[in-house]
């Protein structure tokens, strides 16, 4: 098992899409393309919206990822926790597949005796440290999220800091929806770190609609763009050299 690249979409929303169909369908599509979709529901203190919550859970379920509802204050920590947990979960899935192949049946790793389990976990930890990571962050910037954007910005800078402390390489891209003319605007193209996000959300004019589904689709396409770009620019930018897609 080589250390390849893990692909994630991280959606930050308050969970009430109202245009463009069911976002879970796009999340399921992403999963088919080996992109996991994780969702963080950002709530205002005291606000708990049933349908929003269900939508958040369903997107992550369909996208093979993790969902977590938080209040604004705990956002920074949650963002990095979810990203890391999702990484481990994906790796765990890969390990499970390998195990079933070796053991010849539907044996999952946690059916091993605790002793062996520990050894497997060490390997997973090790890969998690070294694997390359591509995260497309999709931020809901509709009117109801407006007040939360400065906190989101801080959380992303924090995520970048956490991820930069790993051994493997990282690439991030940042998108916001609804866009000015399209479903989604790319605020920041693929980059190695997100320490330069100052004022990035200020360009946004919050709209009344929340097209979560179409926005997810556009975000998924970002991974294709990265693939193409890396093929073209191979050799020019050193950090793309190791890619072997």
């Amino acid at each position, binding site marked *: 098992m080589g250390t390849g690249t893990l692909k994630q979409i991280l959606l930050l929303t308050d969970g009430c899409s109202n245009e463009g169909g069911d976002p879970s369908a796009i999340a399921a599509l992403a999963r088919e393309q080996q992109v996991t979709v994780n969702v963080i529901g950002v709530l205002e203190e005291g606000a708990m919206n049933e349908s929003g*919550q269900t939508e958040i*859970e369903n997107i*992550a*379920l369909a996208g093979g990822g*993790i*969902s*977590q*509802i*938080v*209040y604004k204050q*705990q956002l*920074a*920590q949650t963002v990095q926790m979810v990203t*890391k947990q999702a990484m*481990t*979960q994906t790796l*765990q899935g890969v390990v499970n597949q390998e195990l079933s192949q070796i053991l010849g049946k539907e044996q999952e*790793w*946690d059916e091993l*005796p*605790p*002793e062996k*389990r*520990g050894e*497997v*976990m*060490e390997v*997973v*930890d090790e890969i998690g*440290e070294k694997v390359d990571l591509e995260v497309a962050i999709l931020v809901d910037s509709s009117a109801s999220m407006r007040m939360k954007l400065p906190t989101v910005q801080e959380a992303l800078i*924090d995520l970048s*800091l*956490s*991820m*930069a*402390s*790993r*051994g493997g390489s990282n690439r991030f891209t940042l998108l916001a929806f609804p866009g000015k003319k399209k479903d989604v605007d790319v605020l920041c193209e693929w980059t190695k770190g997100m320490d330069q996000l100052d004022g990035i959300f200020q360009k946004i004019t919050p709209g009344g609609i929340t097209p979560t589904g179409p926005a997810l689709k556009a975000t998924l396409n970002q991974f294709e763009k990265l693939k193409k770009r890396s093929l073209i620019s191979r050799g020019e930018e050193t950090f793309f050299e190791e890619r072997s897609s």
Partner: protein
Amino acid sequence: MEKKHSLKNEAPDLSKGTKLLGKWNKNPYYIRRTLGRGATGAVYLADSREGQVALKVGHNSMSITSEVNVLKHFAKVQGQVLGPSLIDADDITIAGRRYPFYVMEFLKGETVFKHLDRHGKEWGPVLIVQLLGDLDRLHRAGWVFGDLKPDNLIVVSPPYRIRWLDVGGTTLQGRAIKEYTEFFDRGYWGLGDRKAEPSYDLFAAAMILMNMIYKRQFDKGRDGQQTLTTHIDRAPELWPYRKWLKKALTGQFSDAQKMKQSLMNIISKEAKPVKRNPSFHQQQQKPQTLKKRGRKRGKTQKSTFGMLDGVLVIAFLLLASALYWVGQLI
């Protein structure tokens, strides 16, 4: 904390008297009461064949296995046992669902804050000295504690000694920190990254001393470093430690041993000038929170301290540091 919401199932609620029989090792345990509930599972006090133990039942094999791994590695670190020692790791089935659990030594003691309330503030730096000694051993073995904070520590007795309660965040040096808590995380304050290296723990150790004085944790504000400096300079109790704190917070101590040494020097220097001033003996006693350090500089507070207590405390501190020295030499 607010209600956590995730897709995973929660750890099971086990009532008093429940019998658990491990699937693999077949060891029986009887639940006595709940000790606590964390992000990765619930901890119970239980009876085993060998006596009382702490038993943690989780819902996620991954995180439980990680914690077991850490405890196993701890057992290999030389010298005094650092964290609770691992006794057993197994699975149980409750209502058709399998849950992983592990059993560790039950550490009986009180929280750091409770200890300071009951035995005096002067314990603060002494506990940090103990902590730094343990950190030094851990670092030498190639690990970093990671999520270092009062919640993860406990003061056991006798004799009073700080121990590590929850070691789940322990990370191999060179990797990224697994778990952290903002107030104790240098990344949050803009004073470094989250790479697991000794200086990461040393930052947190210094923040624990801050937290002992500022029980209400404060935000970083606009400029994290500036906020910390302001808070250090504002508290008279921190005056003797301000240089030490600033050095630790900016990563200037190369290892835990040097930081411990430096702190012990301050504690012993602290004690001397007061000892030379016998006139304090005459002062009457008042119910007090001992502010030994405020006294030295703040000439105006003289009368608020019971001198006998003060001298005893100082004598103790000297004795404690002497003992540490001896321990160090051996």
